[in-house]
């Protein structure tokens, strides 16, 4: 019987072309959002390709230059000698560490427009290369992107609310509710029959579109774990949609008029999508204040000055700690490159506590957000969408950790050679450490997304349950 009732509801909906408009609106916005996201992905890919091209040419140049300098055919200063590890490791030989956009990156831009996705690792200290921000009009960063995740977070709930805010109230106002309920059917069952075609239509649209657009070239489904992640994207979308439907039913079940329902639901939308996130943002910043980076700049500068002042002394101490790195021949003032090694080392060591404090505060903020995100399905969904698309801060710190290890490898290669005053040969260029980004384990991502899914289904279930109960007490007649 439910099926037959649903076909009537569908026919009723189709009469004023509601399904068509919904399909059109969600279809266009999703397609546009995904296209926009894929533009950003290709922008990143092109930039990465350009960087790699530049790296290839630069290293090729080194291979060419070294024999020329060795043969004495070219005169160079100590700053630009391609044979000196101190000169090469500082820039001309540097390689890029790159976090390529994930295969599903077109789904959500997320935080990826805020954090650098590639940088040139040198023998210098981390802070000299870490802030390789992409150029973007700050107004656009402030605004955020029109991507698939925006459509799902903001517009999708509005479509859901627009087609279900008067689910029951319209029948009451239209007078059909009394006639329908004088038949042997209970209101919850009738509501279900009215709800399911809407759920089917509104939720299946973005699900099918995400799958379709990703399969049709918007994404790279061969990426590691892409299948699982896409499946979880779909699951999160469905759960998020169900939450909003449940909310609409619960509000309808109160028995207020359509206009009141619309106001209440608009208010709830604002509460969950805008207010709770902004208040949480403020609360998190108050609980774990990140001092202005100005403080870190100062710390770096002070540490750098101190290290420079006692450079020679630092070097002596450094060599005491690492006797194996001492140059073969004794005597003579340490050269600029050698001193720089010691200064870098000391500066980095002195700044590390300050840097750690920043990281700890940001990590504290993230942990608090992770805990309190369940207050608003929008926050849960946003984090989950970013996670699927590989645009989360989590993936960025995963990348940073790898870059950190690589930086150490880079230094481990160059520093001993600098201290031993070795000279590089053309063949050495190929032995410079190289970086390859390892994607996060899909199990880890799936674990996080699983929690998010529960965090959406549980409130959806609770709200739906409450709505169901209230429907049983719905004031069919009178006030």
């Amino acid at each position, binding site marked *: 019987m439910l099926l037959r009732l649903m076909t009537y509801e569908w026919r009723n909906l189709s009469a004023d072309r509601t399904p068509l408009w919904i399909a059109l609106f969600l279809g266009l916005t999703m397609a546009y959002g995904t296209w926009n996201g894929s533009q950003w992905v290709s922008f990143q890919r092109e930039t990465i390709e350009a960087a790699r091209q530049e790296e290839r040419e630069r290293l090729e140049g080194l291979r060419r230059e070294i024999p020329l300098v060795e043969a004495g055919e070219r005169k160079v200063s100590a700053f630009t000698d391609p044979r000196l590890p101190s000169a090469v490791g500082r820039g001309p030989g540097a390689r890029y560490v790159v976090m390529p956009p994930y295969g599903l990156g077109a789904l959500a831009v997320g935080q990826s427009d805020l954090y650098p996705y590639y940088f040139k690792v040198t023998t210098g200290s981390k802070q000299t290369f870490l802030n390789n921000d992409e150029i973007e009009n700050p107004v656009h960063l402030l605004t955020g992107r029109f991507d698939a995740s925006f459509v799902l977070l903001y517009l999708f709930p509005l479509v859901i609310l627009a087609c279900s805010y008067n689910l029951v109230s319209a029948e009451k106002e239209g007078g059909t509710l009394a006639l329908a309920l004088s038949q042997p059917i209970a209101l919850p069952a009738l509501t279900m029959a009215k709800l399911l075609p809407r759920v089917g239509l509104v939720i299946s649209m973005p699900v099918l579109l995400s799958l379709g657009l990703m399969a049709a070239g918007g994404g790279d489904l061969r990426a590691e774990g892409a299948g699982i992640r896409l499946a979880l994207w779909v699951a999160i979308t469905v759960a998020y949609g169900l939450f909003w439907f449940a909310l609409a039913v619960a509000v309808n079940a109160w028995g207020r008029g359509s206009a009141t329902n619309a106001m209440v639901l608009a208010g709830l939308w604002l509460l969950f999508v805008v207010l709770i996130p902004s208040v949480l943002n403020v609360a998190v910043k108050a609980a774990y204040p990140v001092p202005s980076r*100005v403080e870190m700049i100062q710390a770096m500068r002070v540490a750098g000055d101190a290290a420079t002042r006692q450079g020679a002394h630092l070097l002596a101490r450094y060599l005491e700690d690492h006797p194996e790195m001492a140059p073969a021949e004794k005597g003579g003032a340490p050269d600029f490159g050698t001193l720089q090694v010691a200064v870098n080392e000391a500066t980095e060591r002195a700044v590390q506590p300050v840097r750690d404090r920043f990281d700890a505060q940001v990590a504290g903020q993230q942990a608090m957000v992770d805990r309190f995100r369940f207050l608003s399905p929008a926050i849960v969904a946003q984090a989950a969408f970013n996670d699927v698309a590989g645009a989360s801060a989590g993936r960025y710190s995963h990348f940073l950790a790898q870059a950190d290890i690589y930086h150490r490898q880079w230094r481990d290669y160059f520093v001993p050679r600098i201290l031993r005053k070795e000279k590089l040969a053309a063949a050495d260029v190929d032995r410079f450490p190289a970086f390859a980004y390892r994607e996060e384990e899909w199990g880890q991502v799936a674990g996080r997304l699983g929690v998010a899914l529960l965090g959406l289904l549980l409130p959806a279930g609770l709200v739906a349950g409450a709505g169901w109960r209230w429907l049983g007490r719905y004031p069919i007649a009178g006030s």
Partner: protein
Amino acid sequence: MKMTLLIARKEFTEMLRDGRFRGAGAIVFTLLAGALLLGWQSHREVSAQHRSAQEATRAQWLQQGKKNPHSAAHYGVYAFKPQVPLSLVDHGTDPYTGVAVWLEAHKQNEFKYRPAQDATAVQRLGELTGATVLQLLVPLLIVLLTFSAFSGERELGTLRQLFSLGVSPAELAAGKALGVAAALGVWLVPAAILGSVAIVAASGGGEVMAAAPRAGWMGLSYLLYFGAFTGVSLAVSAWAPSSRVALMVLLGFWMMNGLVAPRVAADLAKSQSPSPSAFAFAQQMQLALAKGSDGHDPGARAKALETELLKKYNVDRPEALPVNLLGVRLQDSENHGNEVFDESYGALWENFAAQNRIHQRVAWMAPGLAMRSISMGFAGTDFAQHTHFAKAAEEYRRMIQRTMNEELTHRAPKTGAPHLAGPELWNKVAPFAYTAPEAGWVAERQAPALGVVAGWFAGSILLAGWAARRIRVV
């Protein structure tokens, strides 16, 4: 007029007695007050940090000891973006532009450390600032207060009664608008007073005088904007067949205006006036710079300069020159660099400005874009004022370089023997002082946006009057 006031009073009384609107108004007020207080607190902390950092960087400069002027030029100073008091109302683009720039030899650096990078992704969903409340929530409150202004009276049957009494539609509309304004005023006037107190408390010395006209412009613009929203709401309420339709239409407009249009405008601006990648930008700048000497390496340009100098002073070897060749060469390289920077950064900033101009064209359809621009502008947190500061910092950098290079040119021994300068030279460089532009400067740049808001205000009044005259009574 008397009739209008009478209607306004009735509307006002009715709204004050409605628990829903009292609740909604109280929430908006609480959020606004909270946002202002938080803004004031963070402004106090951040501006104190910036001030002390600016003093520290100055002290470091002065106490750098004896060294070669060019080493000092490399050492450089930092410039920290000051926070103007009004930024506590609207952070604008501040979280997304860096807070500090290193002013060193040879290079115009980018601003580093965007505060948003030290926040979680939740920040992207929304930030609780005065601007958020004023630009998103207050218009929503207006919509909720007015969507049933006409349609509700028609549904209740009181509209026919009103018109039968000889009330004119224009009087009715004006009365309703005044009633809404009064109801909003109950919440917004205390908030504005609170905000003013916060701004005064946040301002040091002469800053209040500078902040006052900016606050005036900002407040006036917000009033016009709220007026426009009220007018549109009343017009829709009169036009719509039912309250339900009026609410749907207005919520749709609110959402398009506040959420969709800014993103679409950003995309449009990017496609019309694409900005380069940071990589391409740096590469292109590197290429342009490589065409000159960088002061360290004798290149073709350096050789040409040397020949030119020898010819000018009519000597045959560099040591015989009355000036130090290295100093001249360094300054020459700076001059070349400055040309390149002016061109590269000039083009980049013009590119962003062109994008922002496209936003202002879209704003004719979504006035929220114009209001956002005006608000950021007078708060001193828009991109134009970021570049204004960046330019001042760059000027200061160039002044340091000139001072150091002149010292080298005229004082350093021509033999190339080491030359060490001391505190007298460092003191020759005046401390960095920055004055934010005046309100008039901002108003001039915000003229298109001000035009949009004023246009919408005027248009919405006409629209409301027109819709009220054509209203269906039953």
